[in-house]
């Protein structure tokens, strides 16, 4: 967290790295399997695996301590693992070609939460890395969010687990 001296309000720091400059390989840790209801079969037959950016792991863990958020996360995660997309649950957050693989898990419970993710494709597998949480104050896809999704779109990962 950094502080905005002019207003005295804490301002969240997104990333030290400038877009497109010296992006190092990040670490993605595989999340344990969620119990799924099997109600939603994979649309494509592709296996979808959830990972979390190592730098985001504690924040995600903390966010999911809230039962209502965890409950909705479970639903949306199962939806995403069925290789589906929906504007209301899990959908693309594309701003430019850079962010074509950036998606967001949408949790409209106790706020307007977005967990920004990047998708990686391999033969028969889709890996979704959960990267950043934002509690949106408005519905607009503002300049700051556009910058964020473009930056996330440039991330590359070493997958663990």
């Amino acid at each position, binding site marked *: 967290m950094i502080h905005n001296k002019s207003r005295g309000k804490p301002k969240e720091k997104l990333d030290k790295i400038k877009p497109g400059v010296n992006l190092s390989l990040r670490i993605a840790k595989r999340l344990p399997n*969620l119990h799924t209801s099997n109600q939603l079969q994979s649309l494509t037959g592709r296996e979808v695996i959830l990972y979390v950016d190592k730098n985001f792991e504690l924040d995600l863990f903390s966010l999911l301590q809230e039962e209502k958020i965890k409950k909705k996360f479970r639903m949306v995660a199962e939806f995403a693992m069925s290789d*589906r997309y*929906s504007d209301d649950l899990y959908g693309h957050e594309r701003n430019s070609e850079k962010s074509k693989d950036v998606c967001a898990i949408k949790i409209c419970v106790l706020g307007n939460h977005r967990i920004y993710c990047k998708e990686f494709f391999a033969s028969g597998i889709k890996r979704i890395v959960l990267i950043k949480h934002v509690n949106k104050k408005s519905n607009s896809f503002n300049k700051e969010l556009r910058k964020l999704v473009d930056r996330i779109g440039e991330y590359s990962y070493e997958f663990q687990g």
Partner: protein
Amino acid sequence: MSSKDKKTWDELFAFSDEAEMLEHEADMLSLKIALEITNYLGEKGISKKELAAMIGKSPAYITQILRGDKRINMVFLAKIVQKLNVNLDFRLDTVIEGDAELLADALKINKDLNIATCNVIDFRTSLQKYELKASR
């Protein structure tokens, strides 16, 4: 992921009891129906606002239903069937036996609960296919 971290995540994702697991099953069933309705609305070019007006509910309510925040009830379904002039078909299919082991493993439940879980599996004969068909 270290074994300690994994245990912590496993604990976070585990259901506290059968009731919580069944709540999730119910949420997913409702969401499955909601997705079918959403697809149908898309195919027919009907907006959420128009659907709200048709069935006498607020657009916000429709949004909550379709994104899974509220669970669908039978009255709502009956209104959908009536106002959209559609049929709702569903089928019960038996879950393959092996699923019980997978589920028990995923839940990390102890042996004492295994019997109860198997009963849930039998009960949970999956409603695999909901189809909203135009009655015409």
